[in-house]
């Protein structure tokens, strides 16, 4: 199972719609970085609207992919984190402080526009 990554102008869009196991998460990390590299995209939105739970492993993978993309020169915004997921993450003690987020896909794209000054 692979998570599809779509290109939209100079951005990449990802909507995670399936239950993610550890392997899929790691595969996604590699796929996204190589897609950034190939497409030269400056911004990425990862939409988590359909994700019902994020455990410490998936949180680490998501946090890492933001940092890794940042190293390459692409900005990642996570969008649509559900209330139950936000509550659970804080209960777990995971604050994801350095991860840019937005309420939904639309605001995520606006945030990218602003941060990248495009």
């Amino acid at each position, binding site marked *: 199972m692979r998570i599809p990554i779509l290109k939209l102008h100079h951005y990449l869009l990802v909507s995670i719609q399936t*239950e993610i*196991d*550890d*392997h899929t998460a790691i595969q996604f990390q590699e796929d996204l970085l190589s897609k950034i590299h190939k497409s030269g995209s400056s911004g990425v939105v990862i939409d988590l609207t359909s994700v*019902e*739970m*994020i*455990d*410490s*492993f998936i*949180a*680490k993978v998501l946090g890492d992919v933001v940092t890794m993309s940042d190293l390459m020169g692409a900005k990642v915004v996570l969008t649509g984190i*559900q*209330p*139950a*997921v936000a*509550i*659970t993450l804080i*209960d*777990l*003690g*995971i604050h994801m402080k350095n991860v840019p987020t937005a309420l939904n896909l639309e605001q995520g794209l606006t945030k990218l526009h602003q941060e990248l000054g495009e």
Partner: protein
Amino acid sequence: MKPQSCVNIKKEWDIVGARQLGREIAKKIGFGIVDQARIATAISELARNIYLYAEQGQICFDVIDTMEHKGICVTANDSGPGISDIGQVMQDGYTTSGGLGAGLPGVKRLMDEFDLKSVENKGTQIKTTKWVR
């Protein structure tokens, strides 16, 4: 108590299987969406610990339904290497696997009751319960 249902944890995908079954049971008992996420996340952490450190084990679910109490009991059993320093693994940020070290202290915060028994070279049992509020 109704008879328990168990999921064997051997493969990575079993982590997903365990949390999906746990969430389903939690939903049937009447837990709200936030508690369902808490329970599913706790199960995921427990199952991953089995997979990472003991290679195989079991996650079992018991439905508790009495006059006073309604809830779910999640038990993680393995016959792995055991935990030598329980105080250490209950500290936030402690990890030997390169993870976030949020697992066990996180599970304790997500659930209402948490009981850890471990014997070195024999195995570990973690019993946690969440009550319907």
